[in-house]
């Protein structure tokens, strides 16, 4: 940021190339986004590795891993039923990736000079890709198990014919909107939250730079606000991961156990 007066909260969402000068439209370009995805992957693998001690009486680390897997396992089992175990790997992948991306993005790594934290899930290219994967799984399972009968998902059971004709298109539209809404939620939550953190973080700097008592007071106020916002961000990060996993499981349930 060149001048103190200019706040650019969008800068944190910029994708920059690493190891080359310019962004190029090629799949293999390594960017800060790719770097933080790998960081997230590393955190997940290291954390999950600790759950492999397989002790009868688990230590804290193993117990945490077991709580996490048990939590996601519960989501799939309660939403889908006994068949839910088949879908646990994807639901778990989506859950931990969104959760850890949100949390890694909320860590104040910027206090390390030269470090530029990046929230992977603040990119809709990421969240929408994930929701499209979930949507494709739903379609694949639905048509694989039920064939064209899968279209009966849009027809409410037991309703009189005129209502069926009226409801079916609405159901169809709401079904087609699912991948967009599913990916929009985590993206918007991270996007909005990080803009707020950025703006109020700049207020602290500007308040201190003003050098007046009023400026200092505003800076202190903004600092308290940011502390609370950060806590809220952690909560929202977990909730968004839970919502994504839960909705994925519920959508898969529609296809798995067609009414």
């Amino acid at each position, binding site marked *: 940021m060149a001048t103190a007066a200019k706040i650019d909260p969008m800068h944190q*969402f910029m994708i920059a190339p690493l190891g080359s000068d310019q*962004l190029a439209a090629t*799949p293999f370009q390594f960017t800060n986004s790719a770097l933080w995805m790998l960081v*997230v*992957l590393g955190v997940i693998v290291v954390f999950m590795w600790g*759950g492999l001690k397989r002790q009868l009486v688990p230590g804290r680390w193993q117990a945490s*891993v077991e709580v996490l897997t*048990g939590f996601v396992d519960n989501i799939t089992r309660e939403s889908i039923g006994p068949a839910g175990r088949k879908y646990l790997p994807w639901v778990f992948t989506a859950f931990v990736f969104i959760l850890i991306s949100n949390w890694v993005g909320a860590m104040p790594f910027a206090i390390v000079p030269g470090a530029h934290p990046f929230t992977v899930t603040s990119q809709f*290219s990421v969240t929408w890709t994930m929701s499209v994967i979930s949507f494709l799984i739903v379609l694949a399972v639905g048509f694989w198990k039920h064939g064209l009968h899968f279209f009966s998902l849009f027809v409410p059971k037991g309703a009189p014919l005129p209502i069926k004709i009226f409801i079916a298109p609405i159901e169809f539209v709401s079904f087609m909107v699912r991948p967009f809404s599913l990916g929009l939620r985590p993206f918007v939550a991270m996007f909005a939250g990080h803009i707020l953190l950025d703006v109020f973080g700049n207020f602290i700097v500007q308040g201190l730079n003003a050098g007046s008592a009023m400026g200092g007071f505003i800076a202190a106020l903004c600092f308290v606000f940011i502390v609370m916002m950060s806590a809220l961000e952690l909560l929202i990060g977990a909730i968004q991961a839970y919502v994504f996993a839960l909705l994925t499981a519920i959508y898969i349930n529609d296809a798995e156990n067609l009414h």
Partner: protein
Amino acid sequence: MPQLSQLALVYQSQWFWLLLVLGAIYVFVGHGIVPKVEATVDLRDAQISADLAEAERLRAEADATEAAWRAKINEAHADAQVLAHEAKDRSLRDTEKRVSAADKKLATKAEEAAKALDEARKSALGEIETMAASAAREIVARLAGAEVDEKAARAAVAGALSRA
């Protein structure tokens, strides 16, 4: 909004790296680690429920043993009570027998003593009569100078003694 303005340039690398990372998580964590962790949890749950069942079985066994022991103890108590009762009864009867035997012995002794006493009294009375008669004869002889025959003196003494 960089997410939109950069999209044309970055979507390929974003997809590439995202699918790579998600694929790695899916394969290594979702299919590799998670089932093992779940298996560990299932194993532990099975072990815990097996342990609980075993504990329940042992408890039932202990209960049964205790009940059997209690029954045995109760039986022994009852037996002991019967034995004690019998012993008490026997000793009571024994005592009674001995007491009655002693009573009988005492009674015969007392009877014999009474008889002896009676006889002694009778002979003493006879002697007194004889002495009284001879004394009366002597008195009569001295006072009246009359000779009283012994038979009449005896009759008079017996009459006086029976009046007395």
